[in-house]
């Protein structure tokens, strides 16, 4: 089996340019690997036919970018015209979108090849990819563990090198936490950096699509391809910048803040130790490291629950069995159609969140909870922005733990959110943040750190991340059972 896909995008590009390989070779290798690692259950839908067709069509095209001919996997809550898009729900089990998400158009314009749709928590609600209607995804580092979530399929696929690139979405940590659990680089861009048009909405004021990749440079390349203002999304921002521009630039003297909350006792000691190593490394480069307070950061989880579930209850109202998706057969009347379609079409976690969201917005609760949460959230955001008046970046761990066993805490809604206490504040404030691998636990599981920047300062994140990546030079390829058994 050829091993082109383990090469860097720059190396692959040279091979493509010199005609030593074609995009078709890459696609075939990709599907071979996916087939071999089926047990990871990274994908809900594969589109081999479409991918080969696209590869073929690219052969006549001039090679204009490093992304040319590169296979990419798309999280299954991003709609792809004519490719089934399920959001990992029975509700959309057989749903064929009739339009492309803005990012999908951009991916196609960048001459990348979509190979399939990745597994996830149902409607992105969860942080372990266990609420998927299509079964859980396994962590490539240890198949008895969760890959994290909700973008678990995307994280595992990149980690296992089934594809060099995947797209994920992040509402409360859904790109960064699985990236941390699977040892890959995942970025949640600034709210508004990437068009949300075509992303099946979970919580509209928090959702953002972002790249999940093997390394920092390739992550920036993908962000270059997918960012920008869209006339379809009123909350999208015009960009004209190259996110790779600061990669490799000296970080000497950078000013870095760490929220005290991010080093609390709630975080695994092993993880804190790894982060302390990074702090030492940065200090050795004369970086300033200060501990700071962010207002209400300790309340981010309940605030998030109010906002995210309130918005979700409204966003998911459209799934009613009338225009698309699952529809209860032979309903007695219109009421029966609604109640049964939504009872049988949604999984338990989704229903629970819709229920609580509906409760939080009902009657006087909207004022007590939602409006209040919005106001406090704004204060939290301003507190973050204040820190950026004095500091370049904020760092901290990505998750409180490393990957945990499958089946654990599946039914504990409160615990599930506690996984996200370090990622949620970032979504609440609309900031860009990356999870970057910084080492392994004693049982050789990846550990990630978070680098958080001021709005629209992703380039700064890439600058610091590329420095750390280079210094650590970690081997981030999991030894997969599938391959050794060959």
């Amino acid at each position: 089996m050829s091993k082109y896909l383990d090469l860097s995008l720059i190396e692959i590009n040279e091979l493509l340019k010199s005609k030593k390989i074609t995009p078709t070779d890459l696609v075939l290798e990709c599907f071979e690997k996916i087939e071999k690692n089926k047990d990871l259950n990274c994908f809900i839908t594969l589109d081999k036919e479409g991918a080969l067709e696209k590869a073929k069509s690219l052969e006549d095209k001039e090679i204009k970018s490093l992304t040319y001919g590169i296979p990419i996997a798309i999280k299954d809550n991003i709609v792809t015209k004519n490719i089934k898009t399920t959001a990992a729900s029975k509700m959309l089990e057989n749903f064929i979108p009739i339009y492309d998400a803005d990012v999908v158009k951009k991916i196609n314009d960048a001459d990348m090849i979509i190979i399939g749709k990745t597994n996830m928590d149902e409607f992105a609600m969860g942080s372990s990819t266990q609420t998927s209607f299509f079964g859980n995804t396994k962590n490539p580092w240890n198949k008895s563990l969760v890959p994290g979530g909700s973008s678990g399929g995307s994280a595992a696929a990149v980690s296992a090198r089934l594809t060099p690139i995947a797209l994920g979405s992040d509402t409360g940590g859904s790109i960064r936490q699985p990236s941390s659990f699977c040892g890959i680089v995942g970025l949640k861009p600034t709210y508004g950096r990437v068009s949300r048009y075509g992303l099946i909405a979970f919580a509209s004021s928090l959702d953002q699509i972002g790249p999940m990749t093997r390394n920092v440079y390739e992550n920036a390349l993908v962000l270059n391809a997918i960012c920008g203002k869209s006339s379809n999304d009123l909350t999208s921002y015009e960009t004209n910048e190259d996110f790779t521009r600061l990669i490799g630039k000296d970080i000497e003297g950078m000013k870095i803040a760490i929220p005290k909350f991010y080093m609390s006792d709630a975080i695994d000691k092993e993880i804190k130790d790894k982060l302390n190593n990074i702090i030492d490394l940065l200090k050795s480069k004369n970086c300033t490291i200060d501990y700071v307070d962010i207002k209400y950061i300790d309340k981010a989880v309940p605030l998030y629950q109010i906002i995210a579930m309130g918005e979700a209850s409204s966003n998911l109202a459209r799934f009613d069995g009338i225009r698309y998706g699952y529809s209860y057969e032979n309903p007695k009347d219109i009421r029966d159609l609604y109640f049964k379609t939504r009872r049988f079409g949604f999984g338990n976690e989704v229903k629970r969140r819709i229920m609580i969201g509906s409760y939080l917005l009902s009657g006087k609760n909207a004022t007590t909870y939602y409006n209040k949460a919005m106001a406090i959230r704004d204060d939290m955001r301003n507190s973050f922005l204040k820190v950026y008046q004095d500091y370049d970046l904020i760092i901290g761990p990505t998750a409180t733990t490393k990957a945990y066993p499958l089946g654990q805490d599946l039914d504990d809604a409160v615990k599930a959110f506690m996984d996200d206490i370090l990622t949620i504040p970032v979504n609440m404030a609309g900031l860009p943040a990356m999870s970057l691998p910084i080492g392994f636990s004693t049982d050789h599981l990846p550990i990630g750190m978070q680098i958080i920047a001021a709005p629209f300062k992703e380039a700064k994140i890439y600058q610091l991340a590329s420095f750390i990546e280079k210094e650590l030079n970690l081997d981030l390829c999991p030894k997969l059972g599938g391959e050794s058994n060959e």
Partner: protein
Amino acid sequence: MSKYIPTIGIEVHVELKTKTKIFSSSKNGYGSMANSLTNVVDLGYPGTLPTLNEEVINTAIKAAHVLNCKIRKKQHFDRKNYFYPDNPKNYQITEARTPIGYDGYVEIEINNEKKKIEIEEIHIEEDTCKSAHRGKVSLLDFNRAGVPLIEIVSKACIETNEEAKLYLEKLRQLLFYSDISDCKMEEGSMRCDANVSLRKNIADPLGTKCEIKNIGSISNVGIAISKEIERQAKLLDQGESFQEQTRRFDDKLNDTILMRVKETGNDYRYFPEPDIPYVIITDERIEKAISSLPMLPDQRKELYLSRGVSEVNATKIIANRNLSDYLNEFLDTNLNFQVATNLLLGDISGYLNRQEKEINQTELTKEKFIELVKKVEENTLTSKNVKDILDEYLETSQTLDELIQKNGISNITDESLLTEVVDKIILENPDSVKDYQAGKERAIKFLMGQIMKETKGSANPKLVNEILISKLNK
């Protein structure tokens, strides 16, 4: 019935005359094939997001202006959450908390007195899709989904069905003249709901109110309100209390019927629409919108009166916007507007109605109309003459002189012949002659009419007038 004081509030939904929908670029149109004017946004497809049509904001600004509302500079949209098959996302995007216009009024004239009907607010929202009921199923057509609407909410300050009708007529005229909406109630581009309650004394708190939904015409609003007042009065007379309810007007029964008893407040779970950032309205935008407004009815009326048009004619002309717009083209000429409006409202309207045409679909150029008005004003043409040649004049490019010649119009100008007729009429109508001599100018009109009748309209009116006056003054 007079025992009770009715309090009436009216909510009017008006579809805005924009090219595209409010939150998507689909065509805003009526009468097309079902489900042919939609896109994924209108259908509420997963992943879709709203955009906001600039023209909707501009049009709503115009509405706020013509209805004398204050205009809000910073606003946001809210989601109104409720499940209904005609509501594609199962939430409606609406300006629940920051209506674009507020504290306005419309002036009506009732019993020769002016009254201000106060307007609480005007807010922007999206229309739902259309459902048709067929036995056990309902059929959904999404062409209307996302058509921009403004909802105009009056204060509960209307006291009679007559006031309600006048308010709606005025509202319709204003919105129509401002190019805000077609205001076609039969097509649903203007829809009315009325809230009615009764109380004994003005000092009493408002009585239990009932809402009558979706009344199909302004005259039906009048009927619906009076029927509802009757119904409630009867219940109150019998000492019965009743629940707040929603009713609808049934054309066939000519009465209101119960739709549903209101639950204790609908739980719409409003929250700010996160997909649409704050909308900031600049002074420049307001100025631009207002300056693009056509001349409004009140302004037109004032202008026509100042050009010597009778009150009756002015009102009638304004009731027909095409004619009024046509007439306005002559504002910079010295045309006799009274004669012009007589012609427009008389024979020309008759022709247009017969032919089902608009005035701009005829051959009546500006020059030809000026010529026609002049000849009538000079009494060179009698009204009979006008009738004889008008069709041809409106349908061909022939000049008035050509037509006069062609039709052999030569009015009786033989003075001796006319004197004979005048003498005869004077003899036959001694009373009118006395009236005239007693200073009643109107008598002369009657006598003129008799003479024209006698000559079958072929007498030269100018000449007849001269002879008649000289005879009477003898």
